[in-house]
């Protein structure tokens, strides 16, 4: 067997994923495939959730970490309400994205999530226009062509007052929001 074809089986990866928040579901999938036929984004996925779960169970670390499956999940919960094993698949996808984020993976959805989070923590409420600008700025010059393609949509939104120029008023209890977040983050880390 050549080095290229060497199976990447890594049981420690399965164990590692089981330990993340919501990771206990990773090994419960029984491969019925209902999620795979349900997912609205399946056509664009490298692997539907069913296959991703099998790969996790088989310790296929490299392939799992390269899969675009979590990035395409729209959180519609269709798979989740149908799963006969009761696996909260969407919640697991959040956990997987969070795992990637902690590992330093770069992905547009993680950047968007971070920009959204920063906006939320700055005022306690999200400033949609500021967040949009922040997202494209942080993506760098490479994102300009993509942003330009959406110019017509943006202009219509502005014309119909759908993108207010001014941020929402800061929440009075912003200090509370920050304290709750910090404490919750610490509690989640302790994992109890």
């Amino acid at each position: 067997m050549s080095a290229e074809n060497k199976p990447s089986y890594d049981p420690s990866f399965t164990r590692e994923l089981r330990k993340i928040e919501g990771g206990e579901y990773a090994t419960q999938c029984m491969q019925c495939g209902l999620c795979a036929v349900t997912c609205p984004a399946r056509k664009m996925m490298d692997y539907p959730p069913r296959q991703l779960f099998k790969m996790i169970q088989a310790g296929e670390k490299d392939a799992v970490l390269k899969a675009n499956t979590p990035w395409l999940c729209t959180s519609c919960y269709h798979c989740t309400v149908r799963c006969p094993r009761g696996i909260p698949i969407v919640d697991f996808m959040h956990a997987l994205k969070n795992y990637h984020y902690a590992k330093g993976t770069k992905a547009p959805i993680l950047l968007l999530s971070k920009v959204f989070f920063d906006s939320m923590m700055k005022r306690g409420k999200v400033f949609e226009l500021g967040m949009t600008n922040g997202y494209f700025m942080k993506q760098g010059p490479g994102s300009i062509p993509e942003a330009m393609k959406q110019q017509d949509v943006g202009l219509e939104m502005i014309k119909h007052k759908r993108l207010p120029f001014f941020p929402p008023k800061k929440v009075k209890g912003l200090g509370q929001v920050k304290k709750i977040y910090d404490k919750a983050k610490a509690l989640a880390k302790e994992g109890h």
Partner: protein
Amino acid sequence: MPYSFYPGCSMEATGKAYHVSFECVNKALDLEAHEIPDWNCCGATVVANITGDFPQLAVASRNLALAEPAGHDVLIGCSSCFVNLAWANEKFKTDPKFAAKINEALSAAGLKYNGTLRVRQLIDVLVNDVGLEKIKARVVKPLTGLKVACYTGCQTVRALRRPDFDDVEYPQMLDKIVEALGATPVPFPMAARCCGGSQQFTNVQLIYELTGSVLECAAQAGADLMVTPCPMCHMNTDVYQRKINKVLGRNYDIPVLFITQLMGVAFDCKPKELGFEYNIVSPSKVLAKIK
């Protein structure tokens, strides 16, 4: 029956028409919905991606702690806000460990939640609290002959990851409200299918395809217009409709109204109070048909 109202960030910006028209319906039906003082963002569907679920639910739970002293059901229009607050509340009530942990986090801000509230979606409140009879009785201008595709959306009926107030696959409640207004709901099998959500920046092709299918379904059903209780569905079906026409070579001209906007029309609220200036696909031609 009074409610503690949680508008959410969308209702103050991209979904402003929802907020404006909600206030109109609030008055017309004597809902007595009062905004939760100093509410904060729930984190939508994205924050958990980088914080993990628990910290996001803890931050969202601050709103439950703030609403609790009033003792009223929390009323939410936005699908995503509903997911986070209803799910946090459900977990709080069913998982004592989670509840204790949430209160530990809240205590850092001097807050506490006792789990006494119910979190309710607007559609649920309209059908089950207000009731269809009362809605019918309030109609001044019946929407006779108007064919409506009722797009409930995905998260509104699946927030609890199990059936709640409506069917998780083929929701019917929105149709009942539309019927009470005198309009005719058309068969619309895409009622609880995803529009692509918040993937506008990260995978816009997905929005084109999924929202494209939803619009196609409404067109095939012969709908004059579409209604939704979800700011994200509204964003994709209204704001992106012309873009989808361009990209997919279609020719849709389907106005999309928030359900509260359509209710306002039947209640004969002033057009100014219903926020139609925020709608990109103009509903004026369709609405002019109503006598």
